[in-house]
């Protein structure tokens, strides 16, 4: 885990834990209040995803770890777009908005910028975030708004019943592509790194422990956190990630990303940096140990993280999971608020009625009568 990159130094030294950077400014539950539980975050609404949907596991994980953040429930807001996963906010007993298709990052930007005291989450899917809402997503990441974005990627349109999505593999035969899709998919992690998102990770719906660890790190990060969650759609794209779930298959296929550690699979594979600077997967015993890539989530230059994201050609032969990047950069919302605050303090505090009257008069007036 790599939260050291943006945790205040005092946090490591002091005995009382300071609010984590991502949630700094968000009111916390009283220390003597009864501990929050998963139940506190579960709304009274019946969950209506299809049986076997990967969304259930993510919901359970989120409900389960939110108490660990220690934030006041009323200061947490989930904003979603449109799609199966975007029903998520209804099932959490926090504030929430189920908005319109693709626009959740924009709505969340307005909310997060105007309210430092809120922990703002975006729930979106591959169609919502990468098709209709692509523009808002890349700009939220470019700005580094303090948002945690959970991108549920099932490589299919579920709510509209089975058309291909911008992450579907080339050749996908779906309702709208009976002879196979021809457009190349986005790799959401590559896209996020290209937009210079400051926190980019990939995890899996069925791996509760990994999911929880990654989500927690994402929440603790100040700035835009983009978490791609591979999520199974049992109805329209069942088994899309089975190779990464199957005990035997995943050993060799999944490359574990851990800060400061070599990037390696459960088998003998490691990622090496070749002489020309490119990355490749090799058998550990066959390579010069000095060439093995040691993962650095805090690298300012996103190139190595990007190269890692390109190791998978879509076949899932070697697919990195975990945190690709976690760097500390000033956030958009902090800076916007600082400008407003700065203007107010330079002028000697909040505007008075006299100040407002002076504003209305402007510089150039004349008097009649």
């Amino acid at each position: 885990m790599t939260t050291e990159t943006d945790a205040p130094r005092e946090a490591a030294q002091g005995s009382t834990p300071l609010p984590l950077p991502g949630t700094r400014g968000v009111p916390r539950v009283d220390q003597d209040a009864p501990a929050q539980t998963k139940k506190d975050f579960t709304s009274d609404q019946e969950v209506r995803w299809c049986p076997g949907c990967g969304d259930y596991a993510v919901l359970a994980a989120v409900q389960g770890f939110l108490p660990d953040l220690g934030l006041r429930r009323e200061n947490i807001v989930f904003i979603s777009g449109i799609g199966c996963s975007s029903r998520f906010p209804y099932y959490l007993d926090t504030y929430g908005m189920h908005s319109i298709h693709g626009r959740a990052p924009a709505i969340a930007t307005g909310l997060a910028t105007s309210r430092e005291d809120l922990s703002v989450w975006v729930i979106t899917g591959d169609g919502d975030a990468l098709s209709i809402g692509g523009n808002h997503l890349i700009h939220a990441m470019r700005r580094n708004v303090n948002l945690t974005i959970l991108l549920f990627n099932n490589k299919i349109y579920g709510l509209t019943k089975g058309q291909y999505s911008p992450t579907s593999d080339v050749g996908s035969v779906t309702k709208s592509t009976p002879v196979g899709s021809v457009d190349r998919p986005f790799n959401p992690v590559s896209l996020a790194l290209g937009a210079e998102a400051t926190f980019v990770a990939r995890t899996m719906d069925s791996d509760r422990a990994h999911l929880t660890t990654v989500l927690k790190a994402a929440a603790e990060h100040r700035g835009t956190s983009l978490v791609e969650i591979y999520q199974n759609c049992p109805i329209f794209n069942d088994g899309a990630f089975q190779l990464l779930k199957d005990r035997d298959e995943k050993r060799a296929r999944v490359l574990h990303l851990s800060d400061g550690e070599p990037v390696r699979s459960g088998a003998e594979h490691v990622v090496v940096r070749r002489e020309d600077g490119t990355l490749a997967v090799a058998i550990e015993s066959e390579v010069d140990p000095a060439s093995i890539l040691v993962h650095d989530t805090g690298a300012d230059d996103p190139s190595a993280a990007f190269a890692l994201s390109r190791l998978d050609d879509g076949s899932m032969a070697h697919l990195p999971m975990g945190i690709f990047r976690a760097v500390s950069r000033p956030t958009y919302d902090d800076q916007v608020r600082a400008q407003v605050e700065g203007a107010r303090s330079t002028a000697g505090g909040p505007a008075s009625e006299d100040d407002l009257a002076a504003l209305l008069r402007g510089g150039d007036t004349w008097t009649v009568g």
Partner: protein
Amino acid sequence: MSSKPLQRLDRVVIRFAGDSGDGMQLTGDRFTSETAALGNDLSTLPNFPAEIRAPAGTLPGVSSFQLHFADHAVLTPGDRPDVLVAMNPAALKANLPDLPRGSTIIVNTDEFSKRNLAKVGYDASPVADGSLESWHVHEIALTSITVEALAEFGLTRKEKERAKNMLALGLLSWMYSRPLEGTEAFLRAKFAKAPEILEANLTALRAGYNYGETTEDFAVRFEVAPATMPPGTYRTITGNAAMALGLVTAAQRAGLPMVLGSYPITPASDILHTLSGMKRYDVTTLQAEDEIGAVGMALGASFGGALGVTSTSGPGLALKAETIGLGVSTELPLVILDIQRGGPSTGLPTKTEQSDLLQAIHGRNGESPVAVVAPQSPSDCFDIALEAVRIATTYRTPVIVLSDGYLANGSEPWRVPSLKDLPELDVDFATGPNDTDDDGAPVFHPFLRDPQTLARPWAVPGTAGLEHRIGGIEKADVTGHISYDPDNHDRMTRLRQGKIDGIADTIPDLQVEDPSGEARVLVLGWGSTYGPIAAATRLVRAAGTPVAQAHLRHLNPFPRNLGEVLRAYDHVVVPEMNLGQLALLLRGTYLVDVQSHTAVRGLPFPAADLAEVLHTAVAQTLEGVPS
């Protein structure tokens, strides 16, 4: 003091016209400020191409600024100029058709070269060939006089030439007895960091003034006495500036931080520019990635308890439609400023039009009512902004404000209001449970409405115990849970409509102005046509013909008495800068026919043309000719 005879005029219309790069807008602005300082009433019309720099010297590159000032109340920028300043042949050719014979033309002869004449299709110079005989033409070598006046300056010839607009301003200031001090102060501030450019501009300005005084070309100078205006402190203001000030004032009085989400678009961008400089008043401006992002940010901020505002023009309003619908469904306050321009599509970005009325009222999917208001003059943009905020925060609804390019860029004197005279704006946020459940325990129901206004509670994140979810899916009445129940949808649709209709309870009745009390014809307008319509009725009444005038500031809902007003007249004329959008609404709503008079020329109605329309309407009504 001048040695030349002084002649008093009651009103003057001047048009400065030149190439886009000639600084005509600045020249007009400065002349406006000088005129305002003298206490004349005034109205302005900037008119410029969408191209930042069209090819020099061509007709598409002509930029103009018209100013009407008088010793009495002014309603429009004037139909036809008394004086045209033409900085080049293109400016002359483009503006001559508007110039009545006998009026004055000042031409910059330096620019009347063979090449420049050819560019606009003149075979010979109209100044030399006698074709301008019917006008008073002053031929002045403005460019070379400027260069000569700046002979001592270590500037390039090109730099010296650029001060020619100041020379023209100096000359016109002399002609109409305007003081230079304000412009001198303005230049000092503008060029504080470029002392030589400052001195050059000041020198050119004074040289122009002195030129008027010394040349024999100008035998008299003119003065226009101050207009009689109600006592108070005045400033000049454009519609966009007034809108920005109105929003800031409303937010401050409501005790709300303001968040403007905006994407640059002509002619609305100045609102973003102005508000971005008002952070000190708790104003946050977010320049979004696109129009949809902009309104999304505003709505997100409103969800968080701020005053969410977005500013745009017609194409942007089209893009924002779905998010405005989300505002209707979530019932959150949201103010949308549509500074209309010519359409469809990109249309005429820098020209004015009123063709977004139906888009504002109906341009969303589903039954999606919003409040729509429209200012009637540049300074009324201030009051309409307050009204929009009142409606949005009281009724928890999107409100669309329909200004337009004419109001946005046009300016007029504004009596600065005293804050204590402005309406109060009180906003109440939900702070606790508002209902009880079946067991009698207190609960919060996000869609339990205020019985008076039908507004739902504004419960903002951070309020303990009121956690709830909203969104675009239909909500169950009272509880706000997702509901697909047919009866519930029917009820909610009618409740949302009823809430907007009910706003009419809080808006004033439509006032009809009919000094004679004998009018049988009513002229009814909305938005920026107020000035031209009022000027036209003034002309008609001056000719002894009674005509009544009323003007709508609330377009949805209409004032309660509108139907009654329409039925009280034998004939109703509705002038609009579209193809009859208000007329359609009036006929459909009240089953009353109206005479729709329309023009979409990108310019305000000339008052004289409207007067003609009204004369004819009155005459035909008296003769009993069916309309």
